[in-house]
């Protein structure tokens, strides 16, 4: 046993419901989170922040959004890229139209814009289920991308259709635009991610999460015991798109700096779906683990051969990436459909008992 949990009995339902019921877990988690905010900002190299940690946090938020829709509520969606695009373009419009607006508020507003779009495209979900719904979400994906391409108003009539994040500050610190330091952007990204992770966690373990999972597991029985299908599904679409929208806004403002619609195409939708599958459907932690994993694979493929002294042409690297992603999806679906999150849970349980077998 790494630590003793004997003697810890829950004396109230409140303590049983807590996110970290074991006291030591709670302290460790809080410490780790505090470290996660401070350490990389203080010590991390620009490369690590810029190319790994910041995109990881952004993808994790998007994966969280998709996980809510697909993992918890069981509504398969291939339209994540489209909703992120709504967030990105909305953020651009809000930021350029209202230069005095705090950028965090801009993010929230773009999330809301994406939520509205998500609700609209979620309405058919009452009649359409399963793969059919997946195809219907493709409609939203392709349509939204086309819309942002065609209607020049969205990119403020820029000649190439590119949107560029204007410079904005929070508490006097430059967080977006060309002069924003990676550290500042990192702190914003992790702050946003942690806040929404907590809110999401509260949602999924309470009344709303149960309604979602009931619809996912057996929607007819759910209706018979009193779950309202349309309301529940729409809530899932709305919240999911909200998070994806914020992720999309961050994608442009904190990571890419400037983007075209291509950045939000169908490949992004698949990428986020992979994160959710590999990380674990129906798990908040899984969204983060999946995002981390997916972000690391290309990095690994780029650097490992180098470390071993082999030369890997860029094209081959891309091909291996595709193969690894595909192969991993198959691997996880066969071996552990609940993904990395479940593997983590099993490891923790084993560690609690170690060195005893049971």
């Amino acid at each position, binding site marked *: 046993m790494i630590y003793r949990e004997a003697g810890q009995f829950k004396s109230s339902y409140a303590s049983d419901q807590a996110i970290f019921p074991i006291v030591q877990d709670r302290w460790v988690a809080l410490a780790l989170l505090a470290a996660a905010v401070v350490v990389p900002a203080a010590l991390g190299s620009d490369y690590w922040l810029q190319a790994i940690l910041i995109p990881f946090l952004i993808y994790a938020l998007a994966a969280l959004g998709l996980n809510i829709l697909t993992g918890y509520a*069981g509504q*398969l969606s291939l339209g994540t890229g489209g909703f992120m695009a709504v967030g990105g373009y909305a953020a651009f419009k809000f930021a350029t139209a209202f230069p005095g607006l705090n950028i965090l508020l801009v993010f929230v507003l773009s999330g809301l814009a994406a939520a509205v779009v998500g609700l609209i495209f979620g309405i*058919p979900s009452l*009649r*359409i*289920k*399963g*793969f*059919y719904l*997946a*195809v*219907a979400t*493709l*409609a939203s994906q*392709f*349509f939204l*991308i*086309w819309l942002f*391409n*065609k209607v020049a108003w969205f990119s403020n009539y820029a000649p190439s259709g590119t949107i560029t994040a204007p410079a904005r500050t929070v508490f006097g610190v430059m967080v977006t635009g060309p002069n924003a330091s990676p550290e500042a952007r990192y702190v914003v990204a992790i702050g946003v991610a942690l806040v929404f992770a907590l809110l999401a966690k509260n949602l999924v373990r309470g009344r709303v999460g149960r309604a979602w999972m009931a619809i996912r597991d057996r929607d*007819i*029985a759910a209706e*018979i015991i009193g779950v309202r299908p349309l309301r529940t599904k729409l809530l899932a679409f709305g919240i999911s798109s909200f998070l994806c929208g914020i992720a999309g806004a961050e994608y442009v403002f904190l990571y890419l700096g400037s983007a075209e619609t291509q950045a939000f195409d*169908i490949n992004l939708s*698949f990428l986020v*779906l992979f994160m959710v*599958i590999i990380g674990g459907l129906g798990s908040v932690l899984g969204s983060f683990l999946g995002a981390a994993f997916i972000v690391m694979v290309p990095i690994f493929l780029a650097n490992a051969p180098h470390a071993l002294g082999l030369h890997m042409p860029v*094209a*081959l690297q*891309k*091909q*291996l*990436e*595709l*193969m*690894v*992603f*595909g*192969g*991993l*999806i*198959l691997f996880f*679906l*066969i071996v552990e*459909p609940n993904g990395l999150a479940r593997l983590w849970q099993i490891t923790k349980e084993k560690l609690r008992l170690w060195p005893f077998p049971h």
Partner: protein
Amino acid sequence: MLSLLHAVFVAPFLDMAGSPTFLAEVLIGGIAAGRMYSLVALGFVLIFKASGVFNFAQGVMVLFAALTLVGLIEKGLPVAVALLATVAVMVALAFGIERVVLRPLVNQPPIILFMATIGLNFFLEGFGEMIWGANVKKLDVGIPDESFKMAGILLNKLELTAAGTAAVLVAVLAVFFQRTRIGRALRAVADDHEAALSIGIPLKTIWVVVWSVAGLVAIATGIMWGAKSGVQFSLSLIALKALPVLILGGFTSVPGAIVGGLIVGTGEKLGEVYWGPLVGGAIENWFAYMLALVFLVFRPQGLFGERIIERV
């Protein structure tokens, strides 16, 4: 306002009536594209009908088949030998998929299998590119890509051959499913894996047969497509379009796949040519999906699909 209504609801039809030969050509172009979608959809339907699995990787299988064929021809093999070798490769692929993907996942809900085929899709894409390279390849099957005029309408030899072949293929498959013993077994498997197993239907063999047949369809599709526009990676993306076709035609209907494909193909082309300019063009990107979406809201099982009766 009125001019907008006129532009949307009147002008395009006037255009169509105004030059019927052009309309015919647009329609033929639509049918040509639609035929491609139909063939990819056909592969989906085969696999779904016989194993209940929605094979997202069908498009990539087309690409893979085409790549293999072209690759072998480029290596110097005569066309006939290359074709046989490709068939062998696709059958081997079917064996592989059965062993690695289907067998371990036999009891899982359909959504899991669907996601597995998404994984398969990406794996094959990377794998195919790794083996055969990423450049566009020309596929020559000995039929000239010549156009000629008939009754004032521009037709194309290659297209016609392709259409004819496709028709024959579909007819053969339809008969196969309806009339033969194996066809019946396939339908039983699609309905309920475990029940089929329990009455002695050899699941493994069935699956290999089905995925091989789908592989053959993929080869045929790949040839037709490759001969027309060269073998390239946009094939797999275009194959995504087969999904709306399936929506329209139903997932389990061979005639549905054909009709659905033709509707989507012609609908797209018509939409693009006559309504496209109103909104800046490129509506082909999403038209098919929107059509499918609207369709789904009113008729969730598609044109020919079976009505899903949910029991408690």
